[in-house]
């Protein structure tokens, strides 16, 4: 034990040097292609678009209320200062004002609740799907079963350990790359069943516009109708232990022909 520790200490000096180099490289790289993403990733599913529009609607409503309320407050802070000779008014209530500022929020909330309800009803309707994918969360990998196509495989992180520990430069898709991609057809309603084998996980690909927990003993349902071909990356979103940060999801959305070819390849392979 002692010996082991000493050996580790001996190896530490170049280790630290390597880390400093890695820090410098990362800093340089981040300046190189800074993203500064402020908002949702571009949605690529039907419900993703609905969700995005709803998100922007509430965001703007909040911004407008924010500007109005704090516009009034900061005006007051500026204008009603003692140092400007403001003398305190005596009023301490006004039924009219209080009724108004109870009614207005109610109206705003109702106008927000209507599109939210419509969107939610749509998102939760998993009927009339074209195919079903069953996803099972494990510590710390995903298993994908294509129930209609008899395809079944596991998918684990493929980022090398050296990149995580900083002894090797990080690749473009650092932590968002896996050995076996999920392949889904575009233009099809895909029902996704979610469950887990050990602890609770959550299957989340931001661009697909939905997220749900994968819970042992439960089967949850979501659906996606992908409109654009492409590769979409996501992660487990529910703390599931030590390697929770290391179980990404990669979805390849392809045309129907390519999908059929992929399925055939999986079976022969």
């Amino acid at each position, binding site marked *: 034990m002692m010996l082991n520790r000493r050996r580790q200490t001996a190896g530490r000096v170049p280790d630290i040097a390597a880390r400093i180099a890695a820090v410098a490289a990362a800093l340089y790289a981040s300046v190189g292609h800074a993203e500064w993403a402020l908002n949702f990733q571009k949605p690529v599913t039907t419900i993703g678009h609905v969700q995005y529009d709803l998100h922007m609607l509430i965001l703007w409503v909040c911004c407008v209320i924010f500007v109005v*309320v704090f516009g009034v407050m900061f005006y007051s802070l500026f204008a009603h200062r003692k140092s400007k000779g403001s003398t305190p008014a005596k009023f301490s209530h006004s039924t009219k004002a209080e009724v108004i500022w109870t009614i207005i929020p109610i109206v705003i*909330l109702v106008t927000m609740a209507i599109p*939210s309800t419509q969107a939610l009803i749509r998102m939760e309707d998993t009927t009339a799907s074209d195919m079903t994918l069953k996803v099972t969360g494990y510590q710390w990998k995903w298993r994908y079963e294509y129930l209609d196509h008899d395809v079944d495989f596991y998918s684990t992180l493929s980022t090398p350990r050296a990149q995580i520990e900083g002894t090797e430069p990080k690749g473009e898709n650092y932590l968002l790359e896996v050995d076996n991609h999920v392949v889904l057809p575009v233009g099809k309603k895909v029902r996704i069943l979610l469950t887990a084998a050990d602890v*609770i996980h959550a299957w989340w690909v931001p661009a697909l516009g939905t997220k749900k927990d994968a819970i*042992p003993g439960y089967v949850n349902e979501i659906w996606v109708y992908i409109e654009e071909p492409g590769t979409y*990356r996501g992660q487990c*979103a529910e703390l599931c232990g030590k390697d*929770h940060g290391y179980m990404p999801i990669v979805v390849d959305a392809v045309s129907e022909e390519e999908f059929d070819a992929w399925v055939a390849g999986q079976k022969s392979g």
Partner: protein
Amino acid sequence: MTATTADHHDDHHPTGIKRWLFSTNHKDIGTLYLWFSFVMFIVGGLMALVIRSELFMPGLQVVDPHFFNQMTTVHALVMLFGAAMPVFVGLANWQLPLMIGAPDMALPRLNNWSFWLLPPAATLLLISLFMPGGAPAAGWTIYPPLSVQGGMGVDFGILALHMMGISSIMGSINIIATVMNMRAPGMTLLKMPMFVWTWLITGFLLVTAIPVLAGAITMLLTDRHFGTHFFDPAGGGDPVMFQHIFWFFGHPEVYILILPAFGVVSQIIPTFARKPLFGYTSMVFATATIAFLSYIVWAHHMFTVGMPLTGELYFMYATMLIAIPTGVKIFNWVATMWRGSMTYETPMLYAIGMVFLFTIGGFSGLMLAVVPADFQYHDTYFVVAHFHYVIFGGTILGALGAVYFWLPKWTGHMYNETLGKWHFWLTVIGMNLTFFPQHFLGLAGMPRRIPDYALQFTEFNMMSTVGAFLLGFSQILFLTNVLRTIKGGEKASDRVWEGSEGLEWTLPSPPPYHTFVTPPQVK
């Protein structure tokens, strides 16, 4: 008006360590609570700095993922149960008897007990870090089955939570009993200061919510060790049931943290606007409404567990409703400022900062209530940003404002105003630099509770880490200021502030050890 103590027989006044160990005096116990929560605030803050150091850039540099999970979990537990809840119990201990004209809390010995449960509980929680398998690492929400997997550190954590819970229950029983029975003659319920009102309502939230948490963690303990299967699907149990029970406690808990801060702000703003609180009655009813709603919205913390559509719709509507009474409170504060005669001493800056930053957290809360959008926000850094705006921007700024507001009364000395203002501005800038970028991280797709992240999240994480260190180190100014004020400084007058209203300001600064032995008459 000055209460005399000379003819009082029970005036024991032990000195040294005994004064603090055996104290039944509400002022001493209040002081103990305040120092305890400050120490916990620093401990929890250091853990936050470990988290932020690891997240400064992609890759694993400082800690391993398992220790990272322990840090996020224990940081949250220490901050909530060690810092945010006790600080307001401390303020209640100091202020409630002074504000309602009572000689002490209704149950002084229980008061001593409820404080002295806390240091052992905190010790248990912190030594779990050195147990085999480490401290609890399943997040502060300790969801099974993950929390069933942990080592004996989880049991230490559960025991610590039980003790802190018992302490909170006793503290809140004491507060309710004090407010209900010990008010000075003439002080009807609707004449009580807002801080007393918010604490009375918080007390009721505590006695309902904490036993539910106690039940949940007891079942977790029996699941771990005694072969029950409350939450284990393999034995017919239900992991989602834990979440329902946990959040039935957890949502009221959020209001337990924020309502007393609302009360503090409702004391400070009228004082420095030199104008009575606008809409006192509607404030009381809004507070009660918020408390009531907090019992019926719990599942909005778990929209992604796969509830039936009707359940999701109900919890969405109920959650949105909370915006109405909360809005009433914010409008009332702004209306209190309106056409006042304002000055900006440190407590007022904190109160304004609290109203402003809490409201940002309120808006993101409203966004989170909208279920279809929540499917994107849930369990991302957007949520982390949201609740830190509410808890740091609301609870902690409220508590800091309260300390500056009443410190001259407690110590008899004025604090250093320049230092106080520096502390305010550095704290607020640090806080915004830490948490505002986290909104963007969450929206762009960064999940919470991960020790390492994809490259596109680097810039905002760096900003956030820089902000966190600024925020952490500016608290040294606070400590310095408080210590200097205790030691000496300009004498504070009895009223302290020009616009002071209420019984506590009729006492000398500092107040004698026993006050209001003869109840004052309130007109």
